[in-house]
């Protein structure tokens, strides 16, 4: 089917300390990949690199010709100002941005699309609500509705299911499966190993350096998981410049 994302000797990090170290490999178009690893393993950092928020310290990312702004991204902690006076409807309709641009009107014609997205996440009736009145799970559903409207070929989700209830989780997973059926490339950083085993065909086990990458069954073995857990979380303040040659 072809590659959607290729990582070439990718190193991403902060103030010269690598958080993702020498990552090589590719993600096929239409793949559904779970990125798993302990805290500080570099999952969020990798995603920030993929969507272009973080520039690599070394190496590069090829995105199969698509603009990083066309990748739909759900960050782990959304810096959303809940006290801002905006309705769920207006917030969700921002998902149409790439299609409309700065000035394109979001009018009555789009109403159906936005309401369909809200219905898909179970938030029908919430259109007029101020975002500050939503619960955690409702907020997450709203952000998923916005993702739906972005209609992106590549979707990157950073811990989308932490701190939400089982029902919401099941509903949103159904959306992820729908995206997979629509041949969109989906990456998700997840902590719940059982959920990954049950729903994600491919997995990347990351502990700053890639520990294992491939079919979930082969990646999430007890040996690999133990290996990943042994990764040291803290940056080494005494570290020297890295001279590993590109593979």
């Amino acid at each position, binding site marked *: 089917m072809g590659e959607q994302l290729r990582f070439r000797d990718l190193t991403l990090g902060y103030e010269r300390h690598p958080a993702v170290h020498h990552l090589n490999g590719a993600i096929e178009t239409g793949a559904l990949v779970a990125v798993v690893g302990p805290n500080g393993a570099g999952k969020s950092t990798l995603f920030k690199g993929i969507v272009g*928020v973080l520039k690599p310290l070394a190496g590069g990312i090829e995105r199969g010709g698509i603009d990083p*702004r066309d990748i739909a991204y759900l960050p782990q902690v*959304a*810096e959303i*100002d809940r006290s801002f006076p*905006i309705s769920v409807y207006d*917030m969700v309709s921002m998902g149409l941005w790439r299609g409309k641009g*700065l000035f394109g009107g979001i009018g009555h014609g789009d109403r159906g699309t936005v309401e369909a997205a809200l219905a898909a996440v179970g938030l029908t009736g919430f259109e007029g609500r*101020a975002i500050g009145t939503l619960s955690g799970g409702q907020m997450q559903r709203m952000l998923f509705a916005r993702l739906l409207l*972005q209609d992106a070929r590549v979707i990157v989700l950073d811990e989308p299911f932490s701190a939400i209830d089982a029902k919401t989780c099941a509903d949103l997973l159904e959306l992820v499966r729908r995206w997979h059926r629509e041949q969109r490339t989906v990456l998700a950083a997840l902590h719940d190993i059982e959920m990954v085993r049950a729903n994600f065909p491919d997995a990347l086990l990351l502990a700053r350096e890639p520990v294992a990458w491939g079919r979930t069954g082969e990646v999430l073995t007890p040996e690999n998981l133990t290996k990943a857990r042994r990764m040291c979380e803290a940056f080494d303040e005494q570290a020297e410049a890295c001279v590993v040659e590109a593979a």
Partner: protein
Amino acid sequence: MIYDTFIAPFAEFEFMRRALVGTIAIAFGAAPVGIFLMLRRMSLIGDAMAHAILPGAAIGYLLSGLNVFAMAGGGLVAGLVIAIGAALIARTTELKEDASLAGFLLISLAVGVTIVSVGGSNVDLLRFLFGSVLGLDDQTLLLIVSITTLSLLALALIWRPLVLECVDPGFLRSVSRAGGPAHLAFLALVVMNLVGGFHALGTLLAVGIMILPAVTARFWARDITMMIAIAVASAGVAGYTGLLLSFHAGLPSGPAVILVAGALYAASVVVGPVGGLLWQAFPGRHLEA
């Protein structure tokens, strides 16, 4: 009796009519900008910017006397230079934006007052500090109305990135590069409206007509469009009532306008339906569902 109190001053005196047109125009331009200042938690920054434009206006005054366009141009340049300067200092040194702006504002206020005192009279200084809403000539009115028109158009243009930058800046960054330019454009709008308000209300009070209606509106609406409408209305009412108050009671006009705006705010804090004190104390029985 009612006619004498509420309409006659404007019907009989041209300077009153001009003052009214000027303050209403300022209301339309400044109030929406004030709402965004408040929502972006930049209310005090608005105050700082008002002081920042003083040296620019003072230099314009030194060079061309009380020429409206010279002072406005000077004020605009000074305001923009200081906004960008403060942002640059915040970005490249340890100092955060609020502290670097505080440094600038204090220096610029002192510089401005010095220039006007040395180059002009006490009357001029009072004009700069407190405005001369009753002395708005044609040129000044033209300036004010142009600024308001430009400001409303620009706000309509940058509306979407401005709102998104307040609510979810991460998402804006991920879908567009418009965030940075929109922020700068917004700062320019703040400076522009302060320059407009400066002639009527002076450097110390110009920001009052921006912020007070905005914080008033917070207590009456939950939706941003409604907030803007209420802010404009309350700024207009403040202008109208303040001018009447100064006419009938002999109070200085600029401060009278701001006093009325302040009174509206104080009343809203108590009786405003959205978070007003009275409603917090007596919320009424809860609903069935």
